Structures are given as structure tokens and as C-alpha cells.
């Protein structure tokens, strides 16, 4: 098997006694759009900055195309970077901003002019070459930053939460631009964000960070439907975590008993090291069905809240031991709701849509 294009091996960084990242390992094939996703302080930016060269890692190595880049200073790594705060050179025009990396590389003037035009076309800002950055909107400035980062055909493009300074509508627009540029240029992209929807929209794969470590790596689908840990399940989308007691266990499946005696069998199990917390059964709100006939299998509960949201109904149901479970019921056209407040119902879900975290 050939070396993956970007290889991050056991990367670690400590600031004094604080471990920012630990044992970060990742293989990224050429041309992939990989997102570092996670809450603030989880280590995603630290990893990115280590790759960019602004931080020296305490342990580990980073290889691009088979060669370690850690012994190269930042300006020799040929990496493109787009920051959160645009960081355009305000005293230079848009064209000069894009030309800067080429001027620094002492490229001939004709080549520079051609490249600037090409980049402006790529981010759809043709004719903006002579404008000053201060005259541009936030979205336009970010596009110039993108053009500048790609002007020298970098091996990798790093993006550190580039859209968090923009409003929602603009964010959607630029997300689309980024995706388009990725498809058009085929550059490998490492993208940092804390917004999981953004991650799912843009990326081929997602690396989920938690407390300085990579919790799980996979496609958006994998992370959503097959979360390996409690944290992954909670971070991606919404989840219910219901207190249970684990009974008979057979390999990767077990039976779980709820505090009111209800038993569910054949639930997939995920071991979580160093839990200390009680076992929970995770099931997503949209996977739960409400059975209004209060009989048969399923978890008995009473509806405490039912909100009509247009395309679905958001229901909160309280179990007999006082735990609240959220259910998201998609409504058929014209249907007003599946349950009403105060109703006694049963909650059913397929085993494939649930997990037991020990």
C-alpha cells in the first residue's frame, strides 16, 4: 500500500503541564476534504497549527508525500492557509495580496499577472484586482484570502474556522464556493470547525476531536449512524441517553433493563474505557416511534410536551422514573400530530438505531 499523501503520526503538544493534543494519528489521501470537528479547546486548531508550522509538536511527526515536514520552517512548507480573521494585507490591493506569495518566490511578472487573473476567476472576483481590502465585504475578503492561499498551488490547504466571522446566509454562500473550489482544483483540504452541519456539508471525512484526542474518524454518515463513544453520539446531532442496566451480554450485543423493568434485547454494545459513569442506551429522537396504544413492547412514557414544527412534531415524553426522552416524529402531509400532551404512550425503536455505552 502506498503512503497516504498526508500522514500525521502520534502528534502531541503540551504547553507546560497542559496537554493540548495527544496521540493524534491520521492518514489523509491526496485530494480529500477532511474536517477537524469538535468543541472549543478540543485540540483541532492546535493540530492544524502544528501542521502549518506555527507550533512545534512535543511528540510525533507529520509527513507529506513521504517526507517529514517538521524540520521545515513554516514558510518553506508550501502549505496554504486561510484564517478566521481574513488576515488580508490591508495596505496592498486585492491583486497584490494574491500576488504576494508569488512575488516572495521571485516569479516572473508575467506569470504573476496570469496567476492573479486565474485566481480571481476561481473565486469569482474578476475585476476586483485593484480594489483595496477595506472596501470589500467580509465574504469577499475571505474569498480573496482563499485565492491568495491557492495562488502558489500548495500541497495542502488549511482552513481554520474561516466562516465563523460571517453571518448565516453568507456562510452558506461561501461554503458552496469552498466546495466548488475543492472540486475544481482537487487540492487536499484540512478544515477546522465546531459546526457539525458545516462539517457534514463540506467534508469527505470528519475527524472528531475531544479533549486533545481524536475520538472517531469517518464519513459524516459513519459518525452519525455508528458513533463509537458517548461523546461522538452526543456531539453529532441529537441523542437521548437513557439510564439502563446491562444484563446478559453476548459478544457485541446485550440486553438492557430500564429502571422500570422494561427490557430491550439485542442492542449493539460499545465499550468505553475509563467511563466511571453509568451505562446508558443511546437512541436518536428521529429513530423513535410513538405507539399510542399503551400495550405491547416498548418503553412506557407519558407525553409532557408536544410542539408542532411544521414538518415534524417534537415530543418530550417522561418515563415512569422521571427521565425525559425527546422524540422527533415526521408528519405526513396534513397530519397535525402523532401524540398529545398527557397521553400515555409506548416508545419503540429499532435496535440498529441504538447503542449501549458501558
Amino acid at each position, binding site marked *: 500500500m502506498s503512503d497516504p499523501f498526508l500522514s500525521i503520526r502520534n502528534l502531541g503538544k503540551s504547553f507546560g503541564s497542559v496537554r493540548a493534543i495527544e496521540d493524534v494519528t491520521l492518514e489523509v489521501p491526496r485530494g480529500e476534504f477532511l474536517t477537524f470537528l469538535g468543541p472549543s479547546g478540543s485540540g483541532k486548531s492546535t493540530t492544524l497549527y502544528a501542521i502549518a508550522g506555527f507550533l512545534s509538536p512535543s511528540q510525533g511527526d507529520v509527513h507529506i508525500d513521504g517526507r517529514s515536514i517538521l524540520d521545515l520552517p513554516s514558510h518553506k512548507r*508550501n502549505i496554504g492557509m486561510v484564517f478566521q480573521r481574513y488576515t488580508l*494585507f490591508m495596505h496592498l490591493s486585492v491583486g497584490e495580496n494574491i500576488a504576494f506569495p508569488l512575488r516572495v518566490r521571485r516569479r516572473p511578472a508575467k506569470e504573476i499577472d496570469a496567476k492573479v487573473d486565474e485566481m480571481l476567476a476561481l473565486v469569482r472576483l474578476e475585476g476586483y484586482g485593484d480594489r483595496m481590502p477595506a472596501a470589500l465585504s467580509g465574504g469577499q475578503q475571505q474569498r480573496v*484570502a482563499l485565492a491568495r*492561499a491557492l495562488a502558489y498551488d500548495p500541497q495542502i490547504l488549511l482552513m481554520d474556522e474561516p466562516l465563523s466571522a460571517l453571518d448565516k446566509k453568507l456562510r452558506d454562500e461561501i461554503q458552496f464556493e469552498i466546495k466548488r473550489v475543492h472540486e475544481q482544483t482537487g487540492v487536499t483540504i484540512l478544515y477546522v470547525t465546531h459546526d457539525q452541519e458545516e462539517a457534514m456539508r463540506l467534508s469527505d471525512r470528519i475527524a472528531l476531536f475531544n479533549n486533545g484526542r481524536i475520538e472517531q474518524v469517518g464519513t459524516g454518515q459513519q459518525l452519525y449512524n455508528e458513533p463509537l463513544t458517548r461523546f461522538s453520539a452526543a456531539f453529532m446531532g441529537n441523542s437521548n441517553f437513557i439510564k439502563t442496566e446491562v444484563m446478559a451480554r453476548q459478544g457485541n450485543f446485550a440486553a438492557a433493563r430500564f429502571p422500570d423493568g422494561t427490557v430491550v434485547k439485542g442492542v449493539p454494545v460499545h465499550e468505553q474505557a475509563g467511563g466511571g459513569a453509568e451505562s446508558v442506551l443511546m437512541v436518536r429522537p428521529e429513530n423513535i416511534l410513538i405507539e399510542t396504544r399503551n400495550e405491547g413492547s416498548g418503553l412506557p412514557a407519558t407525553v409532557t410536551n408536544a410542539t408542532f414544527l411544521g414538518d415534524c412534531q417534537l415530543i418530550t415524553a417522561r418515563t415512569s422514573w422521571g427521565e425525559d426522552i425527546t422524540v422527533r416524529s415526521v408528519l405526513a402531509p396534513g397530519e397535525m400530530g402523532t401524540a398529545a400532551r398527557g397521553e400515555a404512550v409506548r416508545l419503540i425503536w429499532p435496535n440498529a438505531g441504538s447503542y449501549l455505552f458501558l
Partner: protein
Amino acid sequence: MLLNYDRMGGLQWVLVFITVLVSLFLILPVVFIIALSFGSSQWLVFPPPGWTLRWYQEFFADPRWMAAFWTSAKIAVLVMIFTTALALITSFALVRGRFRGREILRAAFLTPMILPVVVVAVALYAFFLKIGLNGTMTGFVVAHMVLALPFAIIPISAALAGFDKSTEDAAIVCGASPWEARLRITLPSIRHGLFAAMVFSFLISWDEVIIAIFMASPSLQTMPVRIWSSLRQDLSPVIAAASSLLILLTLVLMLLAALLRKKAN
């Protein structure tokens, strides 16, 4: 009511009166000097009996005044260049550095600003006598540099602190070496701070009296020194002309600095 201009009532008139008086008090001597320099009376009679440019002509014709003028200019320019350069690299340390005692160091650099100049002047005088720098250009420039350094550090470090380092990092990622990035990106971005430092250090040297008195020799005198020794002898209106020129230069430079600051905002 007390802090509302329109609703102060009688109090407003009292305050306005005092303010006008004090403002006149502050501005009249300056106007007075400039008027005197054009007055035809040799005995500094005010209002002058006539108007003349004679004192300015005398000033420009006098080789000693001219020598003092050029000496002042030379020293001030040298002080400006060296102080700004030194303040620039020091500001990088004070703003970007992460070392223990950084705040103490910053306070230490500001000390020449708070000590009485006469103490610094006397101390340097003694020191320079010993090492033979007294009455030399080098001694003058160094002495003024010590005094001007805090006034240059303050605007430069303020500008540098206000500059987002990520922009410099972006330049590095784009392929510029750290020093190239600082030269091509950071420096142009803090140029308003640099200009302020240059203007301040120039003016501080140009107007400085006490250290100059100690550092001077018969062949090396700045304008303030000449004015000082002339004042102790007589009050010829040529001094008024010299003073007016000093005032003019300061005014021009301060206006320049203010204009540049407005443009930067």
C-alpha cells in the same frame, strides 16, 4: 445638570469665563513672542512701533545662529533615526515576547520619562567627562536617545499591539521568511506608530535644553543652548525670531503627526 452644558445655569458663565481667561493666558505668550519677532523696537516694546523682518535677517545672517540651527537639525535627525530603530526592535520584544518580567521591563524602559531631566543630565555629564564623550556629537545623540526612547516605544508598541499577528503569520505561510514578512507586511501596517515615534523623538531632541546645556561645547551648540546663553545676557528680539522659528517647526510637525493619525483611523 452639573455635567450638562446647556442646563448649568449661572454656573455656565462662571466656568466659561475662567476657561476663556485661562485659554488666553495659555495662548497669549506664544502669540506675543511671534508678534515681538516682527516688531521694530529693539527694546521689546509692546505693542511695537513698527513691523520689520530685521530680526529674522539678523538671525539668518549670524553664523553662530546658523551653526546652532544646523547642529540642532543634525542631532535631531540622528536621534530620530536611532531612537526609532531601537524603539522598533524593543517594541517587538515588549509586545510579542513571552518572558517573565516583561511588564517590569516595560516600566523600566519608561523610567527616563519620569525622572527629572537635570538628574539625568548631570549623571551623563559626569560619565561623559570620564570617557571623553562630552561636547561630542555622539555624546549628544546618545544622551538625547536615552530621553527620547520611552516616547518612541509608546506609540510603536501601541501600534504593534493593535496589529493582528495572524496577518504576519499569513505572510509566512504564503512563503515569506519571518523577517521578510515583518518588513513587507508588519512594518507598513504599523507605519502610523513609526511616524509618531519619529516625530516625537525628533521634537524631543530639537527642543531639549538641559542635557544640551551640559553636553555643549563652544563649537557644538544647539539652538536651545544658544537661546539659553543669549537669554542670560540680554533679551534681544533676535531671540524672539529664533524662538518663533522653533515654534513654527514644532507646530508643523505636530500638525503632520495629527494628520497622519487621523488618516490612520
